[in-house]
């Protein structure tokens, strides 16, 4: 009995330390959408814009154009333009698309940014070497996902 309480206490402590983030494996998708914030903290749209345009982070512009980022060179066109994404989608849908787009668009080429398992020959970053599957971290952190969602919501036509 005592041991159970101690264990429970430890768990809530751990949860508190990670600011009650939802782990990648615990995200609940409803028809592709994720209703709950992954962090409980509001997203910062300006940070989201940085994540989207940075090669080392989201690099979303590798595949998408965003007219609101005229300074970002070489935007790709593998995916549709994100102009007006904030009109077309609800917040929960955007959170789902950015976390794991395959839950919304079956078989899409868009990578899953908040997922840590189910990969074939996962590598250690871009070294070409193997990574221990237990050591895989999502491409974007929970707060970065929230920041990107906040930015996408500003993209209105």
């Amino acid at each position: 009995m005592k041991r159970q309480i101690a264990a429970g206490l430890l768990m809530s402590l751990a949860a508190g330390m990670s600011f009650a983030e939802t782990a990648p494996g615990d995200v609940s998708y409803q028809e592709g959408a994720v209703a709950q914030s992954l962090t409980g903290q509001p997203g910062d749209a300006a940070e989201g814009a940085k994540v989207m345009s940075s090669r080392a982070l989201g690099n979303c512009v590798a595949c998408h154009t965003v007219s609101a980022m005229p300074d970002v060179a070489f935007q790709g066109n593998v995916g549709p333009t994100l102009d007006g994404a904030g009109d077309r989608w609800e917040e929960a849908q955007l959170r789902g698309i950015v976390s794991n787009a395959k839950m919304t668009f079956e078989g899409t080429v868009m990578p899953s940014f908040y997922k840590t398992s189910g990969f074939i020959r996962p590598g250690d970053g871009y070294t070409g070497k193997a990574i221990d599957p237990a050591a895989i971290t999502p491409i974007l952190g929970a707060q970065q996902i929230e920041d990107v969602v906040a930015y996408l919501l500003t993209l209105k036509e």
Partner: protein
Amino acid sequence: MKKRTLATTCAATALALVGLSAMADPAEDELVINGDITIVTHTTKAPDYIEGLSEQYSGWHFREDDTRDMERDDFDNPGMLGVEAARDSWAEADGTEGKSCASCHNEPESMAGVRPVMPKFNTEKGEMYTLEMYINQCRTERMGAEAWGWDDAAMVNMTALISSVSRGMPVNVAIDGPAAPYWEQGKEMYYTRYGQLELSCANCHEQNYGNHIRADHLSQGQTNAFPTYRLKTASLNSIHNRFKGCIRDTRAETFKPGSAEFIALELYVASRGNGLSVEGPSVRN
């Protein structure tokens, strides 16, 4: 007023669309090398066994004007320096037997017709052999020389020389008979979504050729033009080295040049280009 705004917007959209497609399409152009060797860089019919392609394009069509121009004349093609170096080593004796390539094969021109059918099943050895493996077989078994590494400059230069004498001939690898299981394995790999980005060769080179991924204009990932001289690294690049880089870029554990996996993949990808001309050494960015 309202109408005018609308008309202006339409015109602007139309312009944007034209601009985009001009940017996205493979360049309409023809390649004749030294005013003499006509290269088939585009066909309007891919082989029937390649379900995902209706037309075939060499990667040449997806490069900028000045890069394409470098291939029109051997004096402008930096890959030809590797060919020249290999012509020297062709005639140089190496190994315990005191022989050179020339001792058995005379002029490098005798190799015309070799590159278009590579890789092919080596009946004596009972396995699929690439050009590199045939070169090393001659070195170790006939010359008593040491095998070259897959990406040694001497090896890549020699593959450039042997390709160069087949330029203009159609790629024509066999996929049936003993080659069939290798081809199946390569096909399976081509559609496997590797790495944390979960991207297959097909995602980029079949579904999205002509589109841009950041600054890169995606080609069909054909191998007819190998080895390629890459301006970025200022060196000749082997087929397996290119495969390695493409898989690494999906945040995956890649395979090694010369691995059984890459040999199978090489056969499958080559068969997607059956009908295009041998073009190597080519120039890419």
